[in-house]
């Protein structure tokens, strides 16, 4: 398993797509969250003047006191999409290039090969989460300094919990992508399927049919909804009347996400171990 982890680590490190995916996530966080929002609240356009949350309060979302909810909300959207693509690339490419057969005729068994891949994806997820937190913290520091306001950093325990929540939800999406990659054996199908599920299945249908009781009961068990539930444990420092109440609480979210993570790993392993490679 360690041999497979080292091999997968080398592949990931040398692959441009790895760095591009992480770069897009971080650039989005910096440019479309911190820079854009700060510019908007500072310029105070007419559309913002009648807002329920005044610009002077809204800008506090960018301050250190709201570091965790800001990073988590970014992770729930673009972070999820990036990690689905990342996970799908990690597994489906092996089928696209037929390298899966070259790997499987080396020494380790199939379980060890896949375990190494999961570990490598896990390490990458932790590193991306660390980078996101660090970049967001730097942005928050710059924003509060430019604004000349005062703000406090979250407590260490809060930071640790927030980091754990971030890693967990990104890991679930990466595992989802990796599972689709193994199931479909096609990068395009895995990425397409994953993104359609995320943006059409969860976001669009979830917001359109949230009021229907039956749909609501189903939504409570979807990974995106549960990630939002987990994120609700980390409140903004101000009240946002326009925000929707989460469908599930943080504990429900935590347990459901852990179940999803385990399910994706086990299902992938079952498929990977049983299925023929090549031929027919």
């Amino acid at each position, binding site marked *: 398993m360690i041999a497979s982890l080292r091999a997968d680590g080398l592949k990931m490190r040398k692959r441009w797509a790895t760095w591009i995916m992480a770069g897009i996530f971080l650039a989005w966080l910096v440019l479309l969250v911190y820079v854009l929002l700060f510019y908007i609240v500072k310029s105070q356009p007419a559309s913002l003047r009648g807002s329920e949350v005044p610009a002077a309060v809204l800008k506090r979302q960018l301050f250190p006191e709201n570091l965790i909810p800001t990073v988590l909300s970014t992770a729930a959207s673009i972070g999820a999409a990036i990690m689905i693509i990342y996970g799908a690339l990690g597994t489906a490419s092996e089928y696209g290039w*037929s390298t899966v057969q070259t790997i499987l005729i080396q020494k380790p068994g199939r379980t060890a090969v896949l375990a190494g891949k999961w570990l490598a994806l896990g390490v990458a997820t932790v590193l991306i989460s660390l980078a996101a937190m660090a970049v967001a913290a730097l942005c928050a520091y710059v924003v509060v300094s430019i604004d000349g306001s005062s703000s406090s950093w979250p407590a260490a325990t809060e930071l640790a919990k927030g980091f754990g929540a971030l890693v967990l939800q990104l890991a679930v999406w990466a595992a989802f992508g990796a599972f689709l990659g193994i199931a479909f054996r096609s990068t395009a199908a895995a990425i397409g399927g994953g993104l359609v599920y995320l943006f059409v299945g969860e976001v669009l249908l979830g917001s359109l049919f949230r009021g229907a009781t039956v749909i609501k009961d189903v939504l409570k068990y979807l990974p995106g909804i549960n990630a939002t539930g987990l994120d609700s444990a980390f409140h903004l420092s101000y009240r946002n009347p326009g925000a929707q109440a989460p469908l599930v609480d943080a504990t429900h979210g935590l347990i459901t996400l852990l179940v999803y993570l385990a399910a994706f790993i086990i299902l992938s392993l079952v498929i990977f171990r049983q299925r023929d490679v090549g031929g027919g």
Partner: protein
Amino acid sequence: MGQSFAVETHGLSKRYATGVLAVSNLDLRVRTGEVYGFLGPNGAGKTTTLRMLSGLLRPSAGTATVAGGVPGSPSSLAQLGAMVETPAFYPYLSGRDNLRVMARYAGVSTSRIEPVLTQVDMSDRARHKFKTYSTGMKQRLGVASALLKDPQLLILDEPTSGLDPQGTVEMRELIKNLRSGGRTVLLSSHLLNEVELTCDRVGVIAKGSLVAEGTVEELRARSGGRALLVRASPTDQARRLLESLLKPEQVQLRDGLFSLTIDPSQAAAINRRLVADGLDVSELRVAEQSLEDVFLQLTEKPPPQPSPQVGGN
């Protein structure tokens, strides 16, 4: 002392989900230390068999032992180096980095990389990305990867496929050298010349079944062995005489040349009879039956049986 086998299969079969029976009841024995040629036309089941021996495909029936273990088990894979079908590597990595990845998977020291690159004559191009390689370079990197573990058994599937004549000759020499140190090589091919020049023994597979096995000489002998070729005129008179001397099935006429399936030591006697009967003998020679003839004989479809005539005798 019993013969030891690097590969041994009993009743090995593979039926795909599509219903196609690719390999049927295959009993294969590759002796330790030999170069074994696995010969068959395209679609005969060679690659499917090699995939089963490498643990990539699960057999539908039968058993196999490869390098002393169950195919695909870590103990078997530790002794096996294989290149099955097209060499598959990471296009964005250099040849050397691809071997580093495979060395890590195999748990072998990266110090093995340079020797195997030298062995396949790829040291100069190892820093370039795999996606820039020609077919020949990809084949050689595939062999280098198979050699990383310094395995006791090498499985090479069509190793000269796509190579130019120079590359084919180099690959053939490489394969001959690989057998040193008691290594077993199982080589699949549909190129008869390649197998004839490289292999100690040959197994011929057709439609998923092993139809013959032995040395090239044994296969030739089994299919008629050598023949006496005679050109004599007038042809009709020569045919009548030869058919009176021999059994009809021993005499075949093709393009004015008689092919006589007899012991070549009878050449002088045949010549005397033809001349004594006033025939002109312009050619008389012994011909080795080519492996191609043997191969075609073993793998060709049987001629369609004539349908019984209604009301016939």
